[in-house]
């Protein structure tokens, strides 16, 4: 009998524990909550006034991505010291903005009862966790950026760090999504693939980020896979690092 009707796993509802209902007064507390008590953050995202919390999370996201961007820019130096942070922060926020409507639609199609503001909060949580982790990786990235001249190697390293950070961000999103009475995770899984593709293409559209070129943006339109292949075989000659580094 039990085999025919297996008991579904019990997912704790955010806010069951009193400690999870403690308010999140400022950004630092939001980081603490995201890392140690994600249920507390999820509970607060359902409360009135969640917009302020989301605003703080986005500010932290921008600050962290600017910080990581400076480290990325140190590889080429010069204008890349400000161009790389600007491009990384703008690209991340733009990718999220492009994918937000479809996330909300997929959330609804999955039967979830999450409000739009809650969906925005989950996305902001994903971005914040991702960029905080990138800041954690920044010293390692900086060491490597000072000891190699290869754009392909540095690009690959940043990509690995980004993938690890994104995996944790996605885990938070799915954790939050599972608590919104969604009938299925299929929609959010499709959305994650779309988000990854958009973010990777955004990084290619805003190139050069790691290397250097005479122009702020490359005029040539390219798919991110074609761009990676070109970088690996050394065709992206216009994105050589600054010899002074």
């Amino acid at each position, binding site marked *: 009998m039990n085999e025919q009707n297996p008991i579904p796993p019990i997912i704790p509802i955010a806010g069951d524990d009193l400690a999870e209902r403690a308010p999140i007064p400022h950004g630092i507390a939001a980081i603490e909550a995201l890392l140690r008590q994600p249920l507390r953050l999820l509970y607060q995202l359902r409360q009135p006034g969640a917009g302020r919390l989301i605003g703080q999370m986005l500010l932290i996201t921008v600050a962290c991505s600017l910080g990581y961007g400076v480290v990325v820019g140190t590889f080429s130096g010069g204008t890349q010291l400000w161009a790389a942070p600007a491009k990384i922060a703008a690209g991340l926020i733009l990718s999220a903005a492009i*994918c937000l409507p479809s996330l909300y639609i997929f959330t609804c199609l999955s039967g979830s009862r999450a409000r739009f503001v809650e969906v925005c909060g989950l996305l902001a949580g994903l971005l914040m966790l991702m960029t905080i982790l990138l800041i954690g990786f920044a010293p390692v990235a900086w060491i490597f950026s000072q000891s190699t001249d290869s754009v392909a190697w540095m690009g690959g390293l940043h990509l690995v760090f980004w993938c690890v950070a994104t995996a944790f961000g996605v885990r938070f999103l799915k954790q939050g999504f599972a608590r919104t009475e969604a009938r299925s995770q299929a929609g959010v899984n499709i959305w994650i693939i779309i988000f990854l593709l958009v973010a990777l293409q955004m990084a290619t*559209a805003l190139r050069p980020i790691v290397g250097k070129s005479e122009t702020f943006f490359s005029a040539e339109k390219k798919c991110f896979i074609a761009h990676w292949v070109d970088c690996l075989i050394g065709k992206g000659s216009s994105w050589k690092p600054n010899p002074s580094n």
Partner: protein
Amino acid sequence: MTSGFDIPGPSEISRLLRGEIEVISAWSERWVGGRFILHLAVIILGAGLYGATMGCWRGPEQALFVAIKFPLIMLLVTAGNALLNGLLAPLLGLNIRFYQSFSAIVMSFTVTSAILGAFSPIIAFLVWNAPGMGSAGSTYNGILLAHVAAIALAGTTGNVRLLQLLASLSPNRAAAMRVLAAWLTGNLFLGSQLTWILRPFVGSPGLPVQFLRPNAFQGNFYEAVFRAIHHILFG
């Protein structure tokens, strides 16, 4: 008591997308003008935005044209087949009133348009990243494929929601399936021809940007398909 022209809130669209069947069947029991206007607005906005992204590869003028034409097709299909669909439902075993069949189809197009509208920033980003008209062949095909995927996903979801609604209104699932199949056949038949008349949408790279092709009303979609098959088989 709700008056016939109360404007329901946008949260109703979320309920429609979630497929809250009890609520949606209750809506279809009674005609509410405000709800119809809301659904109409979502179709115009969602499909219009998607249409704009469809045309933007060729230029802003084409984007504007397709933003008008794309929702127009949905509205014309709904209006053109309204009577036929209303007649077919009771004949195929689903005893619903005319306005119920009409609002069910409007709701399914609303779901489709909301999904398309949500996909439009992603498609716009894809088009913005696509190489220009110089490398037209593969880009044009790639863009067409992306549109096929997005429209197929949105259309399938809209029809799944429609089937769920019909099943809730019908004594058995078989009757709901029959009605859906009949409605789909009629809508596809009319929709294909309307799409043929109102072409171009993405716009072939070698042809000029136009609201309608000069030969829009010459021939039809099915003749063109027949000619294409004949050409492939017999040269």
